[in-house]
């Protein structure tokens, strides 16, 4: 990814992320979240993480944000809130803290040694390479993930279907 393309996409990501946080209507926030996740998947492709980029679009932009929109529609939250944010002091402290974090990271990044691009192994980032790691070194966490998903499904159904 060339520098101008990176900068253009970075500006779009930041603008979409700010829309998520700042827009008074949750529906618009969810739509801006989809835009942010799509643009981030472009970065993943540029970083040779093709499978992660596809999963990002399918799982995040597809499943999770649709779940968000579904709940927003179900609760009929399409009207903007009358008072969407906390009080002015909290907002000032939070925005100041956010800028502080960004400045701190920017200062730290100046000390990162320039990493030379290593010679990547054949098939870096494709499905076969990721699956090989997943089913050898990370097989135990991978299996535990299935238990986590099962517990999450049971918990979500139990919570959402309870009466009163």
């Amino acid at each position, binding site marked *: 990814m060339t520098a101008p393309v*990176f900068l253009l996409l970075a500006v779009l990501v930041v603008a979409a992320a700010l829309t998520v946080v700042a827009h008074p209507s949750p529906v618009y926030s969810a739509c801006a979240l989809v835009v942010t996740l799509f643009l981030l998947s472009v970065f993943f492709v540029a970083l040779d993480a093709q499978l992660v980029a596809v999963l990002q679009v399918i799982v995040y932009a597809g499943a999770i944000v649709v779940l968000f929109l579904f709940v927003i529609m179900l609760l009929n939250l399409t009207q903007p809130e009358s008072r969407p944010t906390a009080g002015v002091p909290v907002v000032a402290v939070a925005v100041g803290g956010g800028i502080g974090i960004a400045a701190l990271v920017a200062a730290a990044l100046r000390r990162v040694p320039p990493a030379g691009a290593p010679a990547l192994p054949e098939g870096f980032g494709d499905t076969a390479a990721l699956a090989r790691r997943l089913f050898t070194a990370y097989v135990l966490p991978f299996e535990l993930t299935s238990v986590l998903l099962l517990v999450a499904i049971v918990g979500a159904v139990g919570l959402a279907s309870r009466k009163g």
Partner: protein
Amino acid sequence: MPPGAPLTWYLGLSAVVFAIGTVGVLVRRNIIVIFMAIELMLNAVNLTFVAFARSLGSMDGQVIVFFVMTVAAAEAAVGLAIILALFRNRETTNADELVTLRW
């Protein structure tokens, strides 16, 4: 790193998105939007993982991103079910009105 965009640029973008997500969690009062801001923070960290994986030539960072996505999906399902249950009991999604646990 691919030519043109060094590792530090990706880390900087990730830090900015993470900071925006943090501010969103602290500032917004709608718990659904707070939840979206958390997803934003998770994605910023994912970008860091993928950038370092590319920079170090190791697949492990991408595997961690895979796990982060799985946990985020589980978290979204349970969290939105909690929001549904809360709304059913309290008729609100405003964090200012959900203060039963405040001491």
